[in-house]
């Protein structure tokens, strides 16, 4: 559950930036390694959407005797109950990948709303919102999430909500910083003088300008969220038992580590691969949008 999120107090306060120069956002501004990383991100997403049609077996289907070795009838052998390890790993990857994206989406919406309200309202509303944000940021997120899941009972929905509930403060800070910077720009002044309402101004003229930095932060977070979710699942706080989840599969496989190492290694390697793709794609997105 080690989390290597960007930041720390020194860099946490997002530097308000003006609108990106026109050339940012064009593929030609980034090098080939970054393009490959972005392509890999897209490829993984598509492949995992299509995965029920790409693997031969279902995640719960018993296909052979238990503990069949790698490269036998099944690509990655079978587990202690005779289920196809490759199929379960792929379904587990799908669960991890889209869970992480969902957690970040929820976190970004919560944080973005708070940041937008704080930055636009100013005054005491801003103070209250940001104090709350700082306080949540000062708590150890993964631990609080763990306690919430343990209390509400393990299950995918509870886990996702618990992690999202601790993951929004960064987005609140980023959006608020952007709103402050943007609301002094001429087009917002113009909107105000044109008699456009505050809410309408906020949503139509300020919100779009905050999207870039939020997308960058979100893409950098995918890898970290995958790790946090897999840690919770490893401890038995993800989907309940028979479901294919990479962390839980690895934990189960530890029992057979010396006799049937593939049961633990396959889901562990899959998590590693997802993390690498997500982190490189995150770096590439930053280069693409922030240049």
């Amino acid at each position, binding site marked *: 559950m080690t989390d290597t999120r960007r930041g720390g*107090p020194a*860099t946490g306060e997002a530097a308000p930036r003006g609108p990106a120069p026109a050339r940012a956002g064009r593929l030609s501004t980034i090098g080939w390694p970054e393009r490959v990383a972005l392509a890999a991100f897209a490829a993984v997403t598509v492949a995992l959407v299509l995965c029920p049609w790409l693997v031969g077996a279902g995640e719960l289907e018993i296909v052979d005797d238990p503990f069949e070795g790698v490269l036998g009838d099944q690509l990655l052998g079978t587990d202690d109950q005779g289920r196809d390890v490759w199929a379960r790993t792929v379904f587990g990857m799908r669960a991890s990948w889209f869970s992480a994206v969902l957690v970040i989406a929820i976190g970004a919406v919560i944080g973005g709303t708070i940041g937008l309200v704080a930055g636009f309202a100013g005054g005491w509303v801003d103070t209250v919102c940001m104090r709350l944000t700082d306080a949540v940021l000062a708590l150890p997120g993964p631990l609080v999430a763990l306690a919430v899941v*343990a*209390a509400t009972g393990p299950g995918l929905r509870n886990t996702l909500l618990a992690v999202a509930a601790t993951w929004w403060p960064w987005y609140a800070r980023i959006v608020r910083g952007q709103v402050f910077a943007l609301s002094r720009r001429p087009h917002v002044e113009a909107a105000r003088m044109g008699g456009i309402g505050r809410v309408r101004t906020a949503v139509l003229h300020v919100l779009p300008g905050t999207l870039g930095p939020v997308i960058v932060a979100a893409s950098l977070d995918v890898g970290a969220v995958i790790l946090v979710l897999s840690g919770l699942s*490893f401890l038995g706080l993800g989907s309940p038992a028979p479901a294919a989840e990479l*962390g839980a599969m*690895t934990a189960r496989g530890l029992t057979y580590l010396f006799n049937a190492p593939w049961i633990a290694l396959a889901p562990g390697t899959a998590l590693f691969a997802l993390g690498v793709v997500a982190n490189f794609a995150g770096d590439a997105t930053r280069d693409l949008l922030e240049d």
Partner: protein
Amino acid sequence: MRRIVITRILSMFGVLMLLTLAIFLIQNVLPADPVRAYFGRNATPEQLEAKRQELGYDKSLPVQYVDFLGRLAQLDLGTSLRTRRPVTTDLADFIPATFELAVASVVIAGALGVMLGLLGTRRGVGTGAVRLVSVMWSSAPTFFVGLLGILLLYRRLGWLPPGGRTSNTLEATSTGFLFFGRLMRFELAGVWDAGRHLLMPATVLALGPSVAIGRTLRGSLRDILRDDQVRTARVKGLTERAVLVRHGLRNALGPTLSMAGLQIGLLLAGVIVVEVVFSWPGLGQYLDQSIDRADFPAILGVVMVLGASYVVINTIVDLLQLAADPRLRSQR
């Protein structure tokens, strides 16, 4: 200066209160019925009602919270449903093992982090490779690195033990400060044995934080080494090493320290998984077993201890930063 320190410490207590509030709410509001959880399914309504009154669940929430704080002040975290002992007693048994692991890990993370940071400042072929390895390292789940380590260093090479704190079966279940205790008594064979057991879990736990520390150090060093003062120092004829240590590292210390504090805090969450992988008899393993049996008082007790350590450590690091960088003191 004094005012800043006092404000910082007060805000630490504020956050600690928030932590207790969060844990109180998790304990009392989220589960459908904490009393039913205590008894299990076969409780009579009379039993439930009596326990409810005994635990004070019939009172209003604010009153319950004050009661909760009162019990906390007396170090009363309730009774574990699994071991049937006071949670505080259980925690006291398991804290030393976790403490040793965490301290060893922080030392390794610091050393590795500085090394990575310095390697990254060298120009040439190395930089890209260091960056690549950093990203790869921070993408790997700790339990995956742990089991790779066990397969390679124990199963294949036989260099390090696969888990536990000692090879001595008599002491295997003992609690307390094994490594530091032996170190104090100069039992060299014992120190060697405990150190070998400590090395792999501590290193695995340190990998993620070391990458983050290294990345921050590299970033701030790169900015500082472009600075005018560094050019002046070079022109003055200082050796490259002196420039790096006196002008570079010293100025890069601030951001790196604050990142290190954040990472040490997160390491306290990572320790749970690492202890499970390496059968390390500390808080993490206790937590894992408590999760299996839905033992809420124990789970929340561990979260309280680790969470409070996180908050306190981050405050200490902030104060250290204040001591290291005079510029921060003049800011409000």
